[in-house]
């Protein structure tokens, strides 16, 4: 895989074009979602769209810096970057942070706020890539598995302590990386079973879940040739299922906060009491309802730029941040929204494709991290806005308003672009 223009533009232009398209289209929608009044002054720094424009411009400086730094730097300094990120997360917890909406996730510096959890994503990715690519690491051993998991759990736990459950979930995306790098198949199976049992226990209750598990195990036992020891095995699995199912139920009932319970209950349609449903419609389901209506009202071709009646009517709360996709839905319709989905899917596949093409394991693992993190954001955010999964407050990469988020994702992506451009120089 030789590259012809070795001395010319050596960065993957497809990734860059997709990035630019997403950022640009994202900003257009932020303008729609956040403007007030008749005149739009694009450089009005008091408005989200004005700020975001500045963030975007600064992003190019950031990209220039990232791309000009030697690729080896990222690998060599990954541990230090990771430690800095961890320290910045700890700093929030010891009282240096600023509390916004119940989450202590920001540093206030001058007039600006910085959200270190956004930067911890790429730092963790670097650390994971570094550790896995170490020649001594073998992900098939339990010890190394544990160590890698610790690398992830530290930032995840710190973020959870900030009361930002949404950003914590993002760290689950590293599962894709581990699996790619050799994690045993059984974990995938167990992970899937855990998900299925969780949903079943909440939706149908523990007894039904137990029953279903028993029937499936019986089926398996019946068709399996090897009968010996299978009884003990089956009973153990069944018992585990039961314990886990009970655990999920009690976790839902006791540990989750009311709004989290309600989000899940809305998603799984658990609530049957019409009075409570009505109340939920005004609270937990309000955003979702408005956002679905806004998307739905867009129709095939949308209402046009700045013409979204629900967007401009500010019907959807948080529309320029987490719910930005509903603006796309309303103003650009099916065509625009599907285009955004396609752009994201293209970017993800492109990154994945590039990652697979890397010769260095570090670059490949990092590329995988990038794809996985972007994917989980894409999945959760758009899924939430369209009501496919429960409400989890995380941004849509490159789209949602916010400097930290934009920069975090840009750094995440462009370190990979840099690594990718460097693969020829390796070996």
């Amino acid at each position: 895989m030789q590259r012809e223009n070795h001395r010319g533009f050596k960065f993957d232009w497809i990734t860059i074009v997709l990035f630019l398209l997403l950022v640009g289209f994202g900003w257009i929608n932020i303008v729609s979602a956040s403007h007030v009044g008749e005149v739009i002054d694009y450089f009005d720094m008091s408005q989200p769209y004005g700020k975001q424009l500045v963030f975007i411009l600064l992003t190019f400086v950031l990209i220039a810096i990232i791309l000009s730094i030697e690729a080896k730097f990222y690998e060599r300094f990954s541990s230090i970057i990771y430690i800095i990120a961890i320290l910045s997360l700890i700093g929030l917890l010891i009282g240096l942070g600023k509390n916004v909406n119940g989450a202590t996730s920001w540093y206030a510096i001058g007039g600006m706020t910085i959200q270190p959890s956004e930067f911890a994503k790429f730092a963790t990715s670097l650390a994971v890539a570094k550790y896995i690519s170490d020649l001594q690491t073998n992900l098939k051993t339990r010890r190394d598995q544990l160590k890698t998991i610790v690398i992830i759990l530290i930032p995840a736990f710190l973020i959870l302590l900030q009361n930002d459950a949404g950003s914590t979930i993002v760290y689950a995306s590293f599962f894709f990386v581990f699996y790619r790098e050799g994690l045993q198949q059984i974990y995938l199976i167990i992970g899937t079973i855990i998900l299925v049992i969780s949903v079943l226990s909440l939706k149908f209750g523990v007894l039904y879940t137990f029953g279903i598990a028993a029937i499936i195990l019986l089926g398996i036992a019946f068709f399996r040739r090897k009968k010996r020891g299978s009884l003990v095995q089956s009973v153990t699995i069944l018992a585990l299922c039961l314990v886990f199912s009970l655990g999920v139920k009690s976790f839902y009932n006791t540990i989750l906060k009311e709004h989290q319970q309600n989000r899940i209950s809305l998603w799984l349609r658990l609530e049957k009491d019409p009075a409570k449903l009505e109340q939920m419609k005004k609270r937990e389901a309000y955003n979702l309802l408005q956002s679905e209506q806004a998307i739905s009202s867009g129709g095939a071709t949308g209402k046009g730029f700045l013409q979204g009646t629900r967007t401009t009517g500010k019907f959807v709360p948080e529309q320029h941040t987490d719910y930005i996709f509903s603006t796309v839905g309303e103003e650009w319709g099916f065509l625009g929204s599907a285009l955004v989905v396609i752009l994201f899917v293209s970017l993800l596949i492109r990154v994945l494709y590039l990652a697979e093409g890397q010769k260095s394991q570090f670059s490949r693992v990092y590329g995988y991290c990038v794809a996985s993190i972007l994917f989980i954001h894409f999945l959760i955010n758009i899924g939430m806005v369209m009501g496919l999964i429960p409400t989890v407050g995380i941004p849509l990469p490159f789209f949602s308003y916010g400097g930290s988020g934009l920069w975090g994702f840009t750094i995440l992506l462009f370190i990979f672009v840099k690594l990718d451009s460097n693969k020829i120089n390796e070996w």
Partner: protein
Amino acid sequence: MRKLLLLISIIAVGLVFITRLFYLQIYDQSAYNLFDDNAIRKVYDYPKRGYVFDRNGQLLVANQPSYDVMIIPREVKPLDTLEFCSLLKITKDEFKKKYARSYTYSPRLPSVFVPQLSKEDYAVLQEKMRKFDGFYIQKRSLRDYQTTIGANVLGDIGEVNDLIIQRQPYYKMGDLIGKQGIEISYEKTLRGVKGIKFIQKDRFNRNIGSYKEGIYDTLPQPGKDITITIDAILQEYGERLMQNKRGGIIAIEPSSGEILAMISAPTYNPNDLVGRKRSENFTKLYNDTIAKPLYDRGLQAMYPPGSPFKVLNALISLQEGVISTQDKFSCSMGYRYGNRKMGCHAHHSPANMNLGIYESCNSYFANVYRKIMDKYETPAKGMDAWSNHIRSFGLGNYLNNDLSVGQPGKIPTAKTYNRAYGEKRWYTTFTLSNAIGQGEVLATPIQLANMVAAIGNRGHYFTPHIIKNIEDDTIDSKYLKPKYTTIDKQHFEPIVQGMFDVYSKGTAKYLQVPGIEICGKTGTAENYTKIDSVKTQLTDHSIFVAFAPKDNPKIAIAVFVENGYWGSRFAGKIASLMIEKYINGTISRTDLEDWILTHSLENEYAKPYSGVPFKINGETTLQVIDTNKAANAEREP
């Protein structure tokens, strides 16, 4: 394989998302309802509500504009509250309270901030309205009564409630709907159909033109004017006569079934139920559970009909052929059967039919009633035959007309007594009170008026109704078809003659009106109430039914005066005056008029609530009201 997991996940999620988008944005559009889209402004164009005229073309009900100040709390910007409050004539506290209430209702939807401004306030406010974002003025139409009479006829309109909105989606929050009287009966005719415009709002909530070039817009259809059968002059006169009394008057034109007057006393001024003071006044009327001004006694009150019912028994006996007009029955102050006695008063004896009617002889009708019953082998068969005849006069069932309220009255059948006593365990004597309109019979004043109309018509009636004419429309054809009674025409003459003699020499001979041949019948009905769960007799109801003139009658009337004692004492006088007023237009019997206007029954009505024992009928004193002197009591002779 390991390489594929993420790739497959990405592609799968992408496809799921696009499918979902397709579902939401393209497939699911059928569920999209314009009315639910809060980005489309729905502007209703309310048509003029139809006017109401009386039978002589006098305008009774028109419309007046009213201006509501509306608020959309979300759009309210900081404003000069002091100026705004002074313009609306409210205090700052009220402003805050109203704002909070509107905000609680909905921050986004318009709600009424201050209802029904006067024209003057509106004029001043309108010029300054642009200064107050989030507020606007909505013009509405209220009823404007050109008269103070006929509250029970004309009814009123009020805002729809949630139940109506649920049942009839045509009505939206804040719409007006008929609540009583003809406003209910002719709601659809009067209201018309409101128009609607769908207007696209832009991001500043300004109208930027109609939605999809107005393909969904509709034009309002104005409400139709109606003419009702009421004669406003007669109605007004009747209400004046009924002041300080309780009861009802129904006057019908026998040749058409048109209701000329429909009086219920006590009543109220229809203007009380318009505008800002409506709810306060309505509550007051509604809470008056003693006088019950909202209860239409002419239509809803079921009284024992008393003696007027006797004429029906006379008609039935002739129809059944059990008696001739010359058959005589003796009466010695009553009718004895077994060890019981039905009392009567002093008059010539024995009585033939004519005398029986004009002297209202109880014994005569007890005999007649028994003859009817005895014609059949069992009392049950006799009862059903009798009941059937009675019912053919529109008694014992709803009239099914265009009045918003009504009562079926009560006419017993064999079943009624089978249920009470058991089959074959009762005899004619058990039901003898029916002969004289007491016992198990009850009728509303309108049913009695209809009954006399049928007698005046010699055997048929038209369903009493109130609609005379609808603009560009016809009235229900069922009001134009006569309904025939089971009595043959030739049997009516002796009865009509008897009723004529009531005036010429009978119980109403002092009520004659010069120049008009009136046929009538007095009635005095015993009635009871429960005071502390003790059945207590009250002063008799005064009842009178009449029609005039004797041939081709123009008016049939029934008057009930609660606790007015004997028939000609109150009801007879009122009926005679009403007939004179309608036929001659002037009153020659001013003595009767003065008497009615100066005598009150309020004392009588207060008795059951006084908590002390009281006397009734003959031992009572009658309250006299005088414009000059304080009310004093006069001993009745």
